């Protein structure tokens, strides 16, 4: 794995007995000694800390920032409240998803943009190419650390570190504060479905931040393996699987978030207005524990109707689950059964409501 990048916390992970995998050009911990299932369940019940330093962060500043960015992303940043985060999309002219991102509105003339690791450089070029006006656009990824503290006890951990309940941001809000003397950006966001926070800081603080948080013995480290099964139970999309340039956000189930009726112009809008969705994202519960993996084909009455984009054993449900695209016009009824083929293996499954996991705490007061 010699060509892979390592986060500033690599040594910490190795010390903790992490197993590493290659992910989007990075050598990242997939799990620690506890294992994926234990880390997953502990996140659902208690609190875990993830190293997410591989993700990218951009900053757009300047008097024209709001107007310029508003043209580049699928959801308006003009009606976004200062101090809030918003899930958003970069679309190409055809309405295909270049990346799914989170935009932090720091002020009317300053935005912090969090992007996926695998698409970071393409995103940066795309945004740069489409910006115009009096602006300063920078890629801060190389010196920005990101740690995700996730789980129903995450708030208690932060309170023990000196925050008051009232200080802490509400769901999809953020604050810029000090933690143990370090400047951080703290948002009430995450990718697990649980109550949780994402913490951004300069790389030079990463290790001290990790140590400060894990000095609370309730906090267990968790790797990308658990992050993936947690997001899958919530039916959150993962770029490169449920989302790609051949998929529109409407097909991925985010149509309700995108306003196509207003006068606002943005890249990809016209395509979205004219395109008939070809597919829709659905949930599947498999019969048994064997997982149907990405690429497996779905058959109904011997006819191919779609394909799996992500599949895994679900630690919370104790059975295999999957996300899949099927033809947009295919009628689905919850619980209806069908067959899945992958090479010589065949499975059986049924349509399921999503999210699969229904007791997640992300939005609790």
């Amino acid at each position, binding site marked *: 794995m010699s060509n892979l990048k390592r986060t500033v916390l690599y040594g910490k992970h190795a010390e903790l007995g992490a*197993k590493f*995998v290659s992910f989007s050009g990075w050598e990242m911990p*997939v*799990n620690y000694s506890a*294992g*994926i*299932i*234990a880390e997953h369940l502990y996140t659902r019940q208690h609190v875990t800390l993830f190293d997410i330093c591989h993700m990218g962060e951009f900053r757009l500043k300047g008097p024209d920032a709001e107007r310029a960015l508003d043209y580049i992303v699928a959801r308006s940043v003009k009606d976004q409240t200062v101090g809030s985060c918003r899930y958003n999309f970069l679309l190409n002219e055809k309405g295909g998803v270049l990346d799914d991102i989170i935009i932090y509105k720091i002020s009317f003339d300053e935005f912090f943009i969090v992007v996926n690791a695998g698409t970071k450089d393409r995103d940066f070029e795309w945004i740069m190419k489409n910006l115009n006006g009096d602006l300063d656009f920078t890629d801060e990824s190389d010196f920005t650390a990101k740690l995700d503290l996730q789980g129903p006890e995450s708030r208690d951990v932060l309170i023990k570190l000196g925050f008051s309940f009232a200080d802490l941001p509400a769901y999809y809000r953020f604050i810029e504060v000090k933690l143990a003397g370090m400047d951080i950006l703290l948002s009430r966001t995450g990718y697990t479905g649980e109550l949780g926070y994402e913490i951004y800081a300069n790389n030079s603080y990463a290790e001290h931040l990790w140590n400060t948080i894990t000095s609370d013995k309730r906090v267990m480290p968790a790797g990308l*393996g658990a992050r993936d*099964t947690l997001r899958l139970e919530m039916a959150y999309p993962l770029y490169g699987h449920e989302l790609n340039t051949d998929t529109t956000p409407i097909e991925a189930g985010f149509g309700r978030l995108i306003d196509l009726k207003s006068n606002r112009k943005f890249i990809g809008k016209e395509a979205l207005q004219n395109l008939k969705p070809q597919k829709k994202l659905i949930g599947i519960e498999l019969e*048994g*524990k*064997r*997982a149907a*993996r990405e690429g497996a084909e779905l058959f109904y009455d011997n006819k191919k109707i779609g394909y799996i984009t992500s599949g*895994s*054993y679900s*630690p919370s449900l104790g059975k*295999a689950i999957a996300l899949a695209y099927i033809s947009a016009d295919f009628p689905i009824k919850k619980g209806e059964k069908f067959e899945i083929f992958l090479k010589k*293996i065949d499975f059986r499954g049924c349509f399921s409501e999503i999210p699969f996991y229904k007791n997640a705490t992300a939005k609790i007061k």
Partner: protein
Amino acid sequence: MKKYTKTHEWIEVNGDEAKVGITSHAAEELGDITFVEPPPKTTDMIVGDKVGVIESVKAASDIYAPASGTVIAVNKKLEDDPGLINRSPEDEGWIFKINNIDLEEIDKLMSKQEYDKLLASKDKK
């Protein structure tokens, strides 16, 4: 006699039958095991055949027959508790038993020492 394969199975001979499982190294590499499909009883196998599947949260892997023989038992505990393989890969987490074995064929497989050497040489790469 206990022997090992390049595909990370172990086989332990006891009289005229033998127990088969995956090695500690394989279990560690796979991580949390969530599903095992052993060959059904009475399956006749030839050394090297793909005879079963083992899945973890992140990966799926085939089980190869370490020796020729006929399946006489499968470890029923693995149905409800596939994680037993992680906890005890080379003992309680055995996967199936065969008879009709050929001791000469099994004798050609790697000893523990040879298998450990193979793992050590892989680590260096």
